[in-house]
Structure formats: C-alpha cells, structure tokens
C-alpha cells in the first residue's frame, strides 16, 4: 500500500500551522518586548546624567571609568570617587543627597547595567582604549544623554566591520572573541 504525499502533507498541515504561528509569535514578541519593555535605558537608582558630567563639564570618560585603560572591564566609579567632588559640588540637589545617603550608609549603589555583552563574548576595554577607539563608537554619544540608552547596536556585525576596517590581526577569527 502506497502512501500519497498529498495525504501526508494534509495530515501534517495543522501541526505546521501551529508551528508557523508560534514562530511568528516569537518574532513579533521579541520586537514588541524590545519596544514596550526597554531594557536598553532602564531607570537607575540615582538619576545620574552623563550630559552634565561628560558633556557640559567635559570630564573625560577615563576620569571616572579609570579601569578601562588597564582592565577588561571599564568599571563604575566607587562611591568615594563620586563623593570626592560631591562633598563640595552641588550638595543641595536631591539626587546628590541620594548619593550622600548611599555614602553614609555604606550601601552599594545598585546601578543597572546598560551595555551588556553575552557571556560567550570576550571583550576587553584595555585593548580598545589602547587602540584609540572612541568610547562613543560602541556606547553612542553618551555625553549628550541624560539617561544612557543602548544606541549603537553592539552586535557581532559592529565588531566585525570595525575589525575589518582597521585590518585587525586575526580580527575575524572566531576565537578572537568567542573563547
């Protein structure tokens, strides 16, 4: 007894439709989520403005993110670094009072990470700072932002294009980043 292909397809049709619907749902859901639940510019515990610091007052990025030039991670400044200036500067503003409160209690400030690479990507700030790559290349024009958001698409394409453009040695090898 032979089995007709048409017959087999007909039997599989409902399952295929469900699968297709689920797939479309997944894609729509992904973008809907990105649009309605923006993890890219979260609300921070203190309304810290990069525009005031890096933009208006022209404080260099590496003044606060000192570690970027020596470590894989750029790091966020310790609370006593903030207080180094804010003991004197703008002490009456409510956001600075929030900061001072953290300092007094010794509680860590629970900043929320905006730029986050997946765990399988090895990225080191040190090398990129040493190669004179502008911070803004990956982080976007942070000095204009009151609330930092992820503007530059830090995806694999960005890395590869830049590596190609700069003719980085082994820059397109898988193991350069995925190790």
């Amino acid at each position, binding site marked *: 007894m032979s089995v007709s292909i048409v017959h087999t397809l007909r039997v599989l049709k409902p399952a295929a439709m469900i699968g297709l619907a689920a797939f479309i749902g997944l894609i729509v859901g992904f973008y809907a989520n990105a649009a*309605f*639940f923006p993890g890219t510019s979260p609300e921070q515990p203190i309304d810290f403005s990069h525009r005031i610091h890096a933009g208006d007052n022209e404080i260099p990025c590496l003044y606060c993110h000192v*570690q970027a030039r*020596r*470590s894989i991670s750029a790091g966020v*400044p*310790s609370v006593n670094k903030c207080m180094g200036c804010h003991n004197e500067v703008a002490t009456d503003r409510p956001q600075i009072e929030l900061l001072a409160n953290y300092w007094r209690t010794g509680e860590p400030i629970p*900043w929320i*990470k905006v730029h986050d690479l997946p765990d399988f990507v090895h990225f080191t700030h040190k090398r990129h700072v040493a190669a004179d790559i502008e911070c803004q290349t990956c982080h976007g024009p942070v000095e204009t932002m009151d609330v930092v958001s992820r503007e530059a698409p830090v995806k694999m394409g960005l890395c590869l294009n830049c590596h190609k453009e700069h003719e980085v040695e082994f820059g397109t090898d898988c193991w350069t980043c995925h190790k």
Partner: protein
Amino acid sequence: MLAETIKHPVEHLFPYSVPPEEYSPGMVTWYNSVCGMCPAGCGISVRTREGRAKKIEGNPLHPVNQGRLCALGQAGLQSLYNPDRLTAPMQRQGERGSDEFVQTTWEEGLSAVAQRLEMADRHSDSVVLLSQGVRGHFANLLELFMRELGSSRLLHYDFAHPHSLHAANKKLFGEDQLPYYDIANSRYLLSFGADYLNNWLSPVHHSLGFGHSRQGDDSARGRFVQIEPKMSISGAAADEWIPARPGTEGILALGIANRIVEGGYTGGDAEDWSAALTAYSLTRVAEQTGVPAETIARLAEEFTHAEPGLAIGGGAAGNHTNGVDTLVAVNALNYLVGNIGKPGGVVFNPAPMSSRSAIDRPSSRHANHQAMQDLAENARQGGVMVLIVNNANPVFTLPQSTGFKEALDSIPLIVSLSSFMDETTALADVVLPSHTYLESWGDDMPQPGVGFSVGSVSQPVVSPLYNTRATGDIILGLAAKLGFREAIPWASMEDFLKDGWREIYARRSPASDDFDSFWRDVLRSGVLGENVRRESTAAVDKRVIDGIGVAEPEFSGTNDDYPFILHPYMATSMYDGRGANLPWMQELPDPMTSIVYGSWIEMNPVTATEMGVTDGDLIRVTSEQGSIEVPLVTFPAIMPDVVAMPIGQGHDDFGRYARGRGSNPIQILAPTMDPESGSLATSATRVSLVTTGKRAEPAKTGGVARQLGRNIVQFTDGSSEAAGHSTKVNGIPIVVEPA
C-alpha cells in the same frame, strides 16, 4: 509570558563604597600568603578579583610546596566563604551547651573576658590558653600575653602532633627539632607506618620528594617499601607493601639493624650495637612481626646497598605503647648506614628563623595526651578559672575516656576564639570569632623545616567578610583592656609582626635596602629563605645504644573479648576532623575505597566471609570505652585481625556539612599512652565487632573494586594459582580473580 522570557535580563553593577587596596574591577591580583589548613606551613598564592578570593594555588617560590598544594589547601576558600562561619561576637544565653547565644559587641565581649581575667589570681596559674599549634610571631605574642597574665599554662594542642617522633629524635640524636628527611635524593625509602604522601608532617613536600626520587634522575629509579598493617595511600604507591603485626614495626627495624651490624658495620661503636641487638635475631624478629625471615634479610641487604637509603617512621607505627622506641629504632637504621647529614638522608634543621630571642620559649608547648588529661583533672578540681580556646577542638579530638567535655563544666569561664561553631565552642560562654587565615596577618616558620632557614609571611588577601577579628588582634585587644601597655604596646597584629620582621631585617648583613622595601619584597614573594644550614654530626651516646630495644606493644582489651585491633587513620580530606565542614572535602572520594561522605570500617574480605558479614552491613564497634556504629567495607589490603577507620567524621556541631555524618573513632579509643612521650597510643585499642542487622551502604563514586574479567591488572605470584583459589600474598589471604 513569551515576552517575559526573551526580555533583557537586569544585571547590576555594584561599586564599592570604598574600594579595597589595589582593587581594579576585571583585573586579577595574586597575593602570596601561608596556608592555614594544616601544620605543614605551605606557601600559597591566592587569585583575587574584585576584592574576592577566587582560587588558591601553591606559591612556586616556597621551598616547602614549590607551587603545589593539596586538596585541603585548595578547599581553604570554603573555609573563608563557609555559610556556617561565626559572624559576630556572642555571649551564651541559655544553659551551657544549649547552643543559645546572643550577639554582642566587641567592646562588651572583650570587657567581659578582661574583667574575669583581672579577677583571676595572678599567681595561681588559673588561666589556661589552649591554642591550636601555632608558630612564628603569633606564638611569641601568646607567650608575652600569658607572661603578663602571670600564668605558665599556655598549651598548644594538635591531635596529630608527632610527640613520639620528637621524643625519639631527642633520645637518639639529642635533637629538639624534627630533622629534614631528604626523600628527594634517597634511592631506597623504607617507611615504617608513615603515610608521608597523605598527611604525615609535610605531605606536599614529601610528594615532591617522592616524585623526584622516582623520576628526577634518569639513571636510577628510587625504590620504596612501605610497612604497615593497612595499605595507606603511600602504601599503594610503594614498590613493595609489607604488613607487620601492629606495633612490631620497631622490632622489625631492629631485626634489619641487627643484619646490618652483622653484615659488616664498621663504625667505631660496632661492638655496642652488636651487643644491644643480639636479641633481635632473624628468627625471633620473624616470629614476632610475622614478616618472613628471608624478607627481613633482603630488606637489610637492599637498604645497606642503596645509595643512599632512608628510613622514616611515624603514623600508626609511632602511635603504640612502644612508639618512641619504635621511632628510635627506625632512626637508628639511618645512623647505621651512615646517612646522617647527607643528601638523601636525615638532615638536621637550623633553629627556626625568629626574632624575639629575648623571649625564652620552652622548646615545645605542645600538649601531649598526658598534659590534656592533667588539664581535665585540674579543671575538675576547680583549678581552672578561665579557659581560652584558640581554634582547637579537644572535645572532638580527645577520647571520651579523657572526660574533657565533662571537665569543662567545672570551668567558670570558657572563651572560644574559633571561626566556626564546633564541639568545643558550643560549650563556650563568650565567643570572640576570629578571621580565617585568608583575612589575617601572621607568619610561619615551617616545621619540620627543609634543611635551611625559612620564614614566610601570611597577609590578608581579602577584606574581612564579617564582624570578626584576627586572633592576634583579639589577644592585643584583651591586653589593652588589661592595661599591659608597657609589655604589649602594639596596636595591631600587623604592627607586632612588622616589628618582629624589623629584627630579622636588621640581622641580615649587609642590610642592602631600607626596611620598607625589604618588607614589600617579603610580602610580594611570600617567603624569605636564609642560607643558614647546620652541620649534622652523628654521634650516638653509648648509653643510648645500650638502651635500644623495642618492647611488645600493649593493647587495651583482651584478645578473646576484643578480637580486632582498631587502626584509626587520618583520612586524606579531613585531617584531624577540621576538613569535615568543607563540602569539597566531604565529596572528595577516599582514594583507597572511593567513598564520599560518612565514615566506614575496613575489614579483610576473608575475615568478613568468616564472620558472615558483607559490604554495607551496619556494624557495632565496641571497645572497653564505648561503642559506635559504622558500615562495613571490605578492603583486601588489610591484615585479617585489624580493622581500620578514618578519622574526621562524626561531628555533632561543626556546621551543616559536618553535622550528623558518620562516627568518630577517637571517641572509643582507650586512654593508653606511650609512657615515654605521653602521647595517646591511638593504634592500641582492641575492639569487637557485632553486626546490627541493619544496612547502611556508604556512598561510593567508583563501581566495584574487582576486575570482573576485564583483565586490567595482570597478576601472578609465580605459582599460577587457579582462578577463585585462595592464596596468601604477604601473609594476607586473598582470593585470586579470574583473569
């Protein structure tokens, strides 16, 4: 829901309020320090990131362990991060031993103790400080503190302290310190009961030496013979494993010595030796030890002609009623083949590098079993007003027969400086919790040394995790409260330590740089070696030679009532029980049986068959002192009348990982001592075994220990026994497996 699952996860960035020194996120900082997990004194390098210790390795610059580290040392991290650590000072609330404590402040805790110390009579020796064995400047600080208190009762207590070996070296060579056994350069190692690759004295250093002896020289491969009633890890690595009747190891050594003297020993004192050893003829020694005469003759032959041969003794062989004599006999072998002070022989150590020579320190403060019994007796009679316990756990490591736990009832104030709640701390009135070694300042002069002078500094590798203090700082805090400003002016342990090292620096000639850069260098490398060696002169007094002889060992319990000799041994992972609260150590399989967690008793399979018991049967082990229940494991490499049990489990109160797991063989040991060293003869207890009818199979990582026809190990003793046939190897009955 779908949207929730693909949402970007929230990750936090927590900055330090005030970052620790040398902190930079994402960057690794290594600190060199000293391991505090056992008394060997290995150097460690700790990898830290973001101010947290992540991994411990051996310090490659340290002469003791040369970059290597044992499992217990690796697990030091779990001591630091242990969830059961004591986090703040406490005072007892309810009944003593009820485990009800209330948190207090350091100020209050220290004041409470200082007040009672002031009340104690300055001249009646009613204050006792019982510390785990400590060395270096911290030991000096304890001396100073106790002197100011007017008490001479400073006791160092370690269950595994080799009292008998110290006594034996003193007796034969007049040496107070342990010598350095140069295993690396020996070509024939005769070990009497010393499980030197596992936990005897300095196992990491010995393992390095063993490797070098075996493979370090292309022209010769070192041979190694192990003599013991139950195959240890060292025994498993030996070329030849010889079981002698428990406690007769010394007699065997003298039998070998007799052959060496007969075989043409040419020393000036040959006549004395000959006279002293006449009683140890081949036939008599063979009869007493159960080792065939031809084996003894062969061992003597091989040992004499090895270039050079080294004999070491310890472990169970030294823990009998004749322990000191046994170890004297073993050392005598080294003397007779003339390898004292030579490479591959016994090398005497220079005095430990130390600065405060002004403080007259008794050669050893180590409390033997006699001293602990005396302490318990004195406490019962009300002679102890205050007992300060520093990280020692005598309630766990002393047999029930000592009555130590009950004696503590008569002490009005017990202070514990432990980092963990343990059996002894549970009975304390005031708990002043100390840092772990990874958070404190200290230094160490390893004992036994490595033939030259070594000092290493232990520095904090992380900021303290909790509201604890370094033991040194607690003592300094008490001293300040008691007004000992003049004698003990230091504000912190770091100051005290630096002051001591200033003297070491000043002694160096020429002093090439300033102290600060010297100190930085020492901290960076973690260790300072001084090319101070000692001439080792080998002269043995005639009276000592005349007195040489090993008596038959005595056991507690009669053969009829207690047919088995209990052989307790320190398990790889637990040491004397201090490793039991580390999950890594709990789940580390015992190398010989592959058992994890819990404890067990090992018995020869042939004996088990005769008794009608099998693997996993719950057995009641009874000595004259009490009984414990423990599952049976058959183990082929053990003498038929010996049963072996690992030490370390059976804690009632040592955190969640240790509590209620297995049983503690120390509890049922008889208080039999070696009269010469006063140390507990831990291998001198006889036991009877009764099956309870219950089953309790121990957890194992391995499958069966048999070949099951897989033909993995090719074995023949020359007489092609048929499969399934019973035969004897080394006098131990075994069943030949089908190939």
